[in-house]
């Protein structure tokens, strides 16, 4: 039987009490120990000692990625460096890396938060976890490692890369739980099939814990079909801890926040106003008990919503929805806001194309030109120009209907879209004056 965490099923009032106490302590500690917060709170006329309700927190100013960068590397530490056991750095997807620091207590929280994913997957000492997130400064590798160790399972710390060895290890060591980015899981699955294996027969997988990048339901279904297992989404970011801030349960209907450690708000990214449950917006996180790198109202730039209602799985912690993209992934195409996930939603209705796609942005004259490159599935018979152009045209008009913006579709050869071992690069922006 998997390890149990009583707070995961505690009454929500009890969790709220922990949160309220935690955010007040965190805000006060930030104010007292971190010059950035002292100035930021003072400038906003916000007194952290005055927090008596969640509404009071909504008066506090936000902290952004830029603030963390400006104070890198050690300016945002709330404890002396001598108490810091480990540091990680963000993957720097969008610029200079930021630092996340951990005391022994912080590592302990992390272990157990990632471990909740393994609790949801019913992992125990009979499971074998193959961890092919990259080990190192990226929080994926060690976060998964700590959480999987905590669960009691056997851990294979293989890290990312050398895909054929990943496939052989999956088969030979009888891996039951695969932990990596979803795009790398797909690459492993495709490689196994190319090597002549039938993953459903040759592997013993029963669950995958895949995070660090958003993926669509269609992509998930494709993965589950190829590897014959159940895919759980996991969410986290270095700035607030790493993977484990929220994890999906077997219901696959949203990710349960580790609410005793993180307080979540959803805001309108343009106005900063807090939105009610159910509405889509930017996720803002306040840690309740992190010691080394606490944050008060950190703007994650991730777009999601709080799913209203209770989950049948019995976990009482509120759920965030699968990520809809990032505020900074949002493409502004001829004035229209477009998320790559919307494009993926349209594509999943076309059996003729695969899950591999790339969006290319360019300018022609002063106009943005968007090209969606997509690989076709082998069973699509493209023996005439009419068939190729007919398919391109059908996808184009579906995109136009869904997004209100014209996107040119271009079918490309198999394997011409680069496979990734980490985060997949879905958008190539060649527009002048943007990068």
């Amino acid at each position: 039987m998997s390890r149990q965490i009583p707070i995961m099923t505690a009454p929500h009032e009890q969790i709220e009490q922990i949160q309220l106490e935690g955010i007040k302590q965190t805000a006060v500690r930030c104010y007292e120990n971190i010059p950035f917060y002292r100035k930021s709170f003072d400038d906003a006329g916000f007194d952290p000692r005055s927090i008596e309700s969640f509404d009071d927190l909504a008066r506090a100013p936000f902290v952004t990625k830029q603030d963390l960068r400006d104070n890198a590397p050690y300016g945002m530490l709330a404890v002396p460096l001598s108490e810091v056991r480990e540091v990680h750095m963000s993957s720097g997807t969008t610029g200079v890396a930021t630092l996340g620091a951990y005391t022994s207590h912080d590592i302990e929280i992390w272990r157990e938060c990632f471990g909740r994913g393994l609790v949801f997957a019913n992992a125990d000492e009979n499971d074998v976890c193959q961890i092919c997130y990259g080990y190192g400064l990226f929080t994926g590798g060690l976060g998964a490692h700590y959480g999987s160790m905590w669960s009691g399972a056997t851990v294979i710390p293989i890290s990312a890369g050398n895909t054929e060895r990943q496939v052989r290890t999956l088969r030979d060591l009888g891996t039951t739980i695969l932990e990596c980015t979803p795009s790398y899981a797909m690459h492993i699955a495709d490689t196994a099939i190319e090597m002549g294996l039938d993953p459903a027969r040759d592997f013993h997988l029963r669950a995958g814990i895949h995070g660090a990048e958003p993926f669509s339901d269609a992509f998930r279904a494709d993965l589950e079909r190829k590897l014959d297992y159940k895919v759980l989404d996991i969410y986290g970011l270095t700035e607030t801890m790493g993977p484990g801030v929220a994890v999906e349960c077997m219901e696959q209907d949203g990710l349960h926040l580790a609410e005793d450690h993180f307080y979540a708000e959803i805001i309108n990214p343009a106005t900063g106003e807090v939105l009610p449950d159910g509405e889509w917006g930017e996720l803002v996180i306040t840690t309740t008990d992190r010691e080394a790198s606490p944050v008060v109202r950190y703007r994650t730039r991730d777009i999601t919503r709080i799913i209203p209602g209770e989950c049948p799985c019995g976990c009482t912690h509120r759920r965030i929805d699968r990520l809809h993209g990032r505020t900074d992934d949002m493409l502004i195409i001829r004035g229209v806001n477009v998320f790559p996930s919307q494009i993926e939603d349209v594509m999943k209705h076309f059996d003729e194309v695969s899950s591999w796609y790339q969006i290319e942005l360019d300018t022609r004259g002063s106009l943005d030109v968007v090209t969606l490159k997509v690989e076709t599935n082998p069973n699509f018979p493209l023996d005439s120009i009419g068939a190729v152009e007919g398919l391109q045209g059908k996808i184009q008009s579906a995109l136009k209907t869904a997004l209100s913006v014209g996107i040119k579709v271009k079918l490309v050869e198999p394997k011409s879209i680069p496979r990734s071992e980490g985060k997949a690069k879905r958008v190539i922006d060649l527009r002048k004056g943007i990068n």
Partner: protein
Amino acid sequence: MIDQLTVFLENKEGHLASMCRCLGDAGVNMVALTIAESSEYGLVRILCTEPERAAKVLDDAGYRATVSPVMAIGLPDRPGSLADLLDTFDGLGFNVEYGYCFLTRDGRAADVFKVGGAAASAEVTFKLEEAGFKVLSWEDIA
């Protein structure tokens, strides 16, 4: 009906050469080859030995190849014979999707056509034979 190999190729330098090299290395012999091109990609249509195996070889090498049935018709080598054939198509109300011509080993003209789906092709074959045209099999051309 004859199996035609069609390969989807992006317009890139050396791409056609490497695809042909791949077929050559696999011992596939080509009888006819034609390219339909757009600005971004081309469809290379090939009549060759063992089209199913050729498609598998290309798929494994990362190309997108597909096999589809086409109709090949033998025509006497004289002015107006193709026009006669096309008039017959027209009279039967069939639309030609694409077509190309080549010479067989014994010097006869062969014309390859793609006409709609499998059912339409079968019907056209029947009607053409009725009208006195010779519908060729693989053995007739290679």
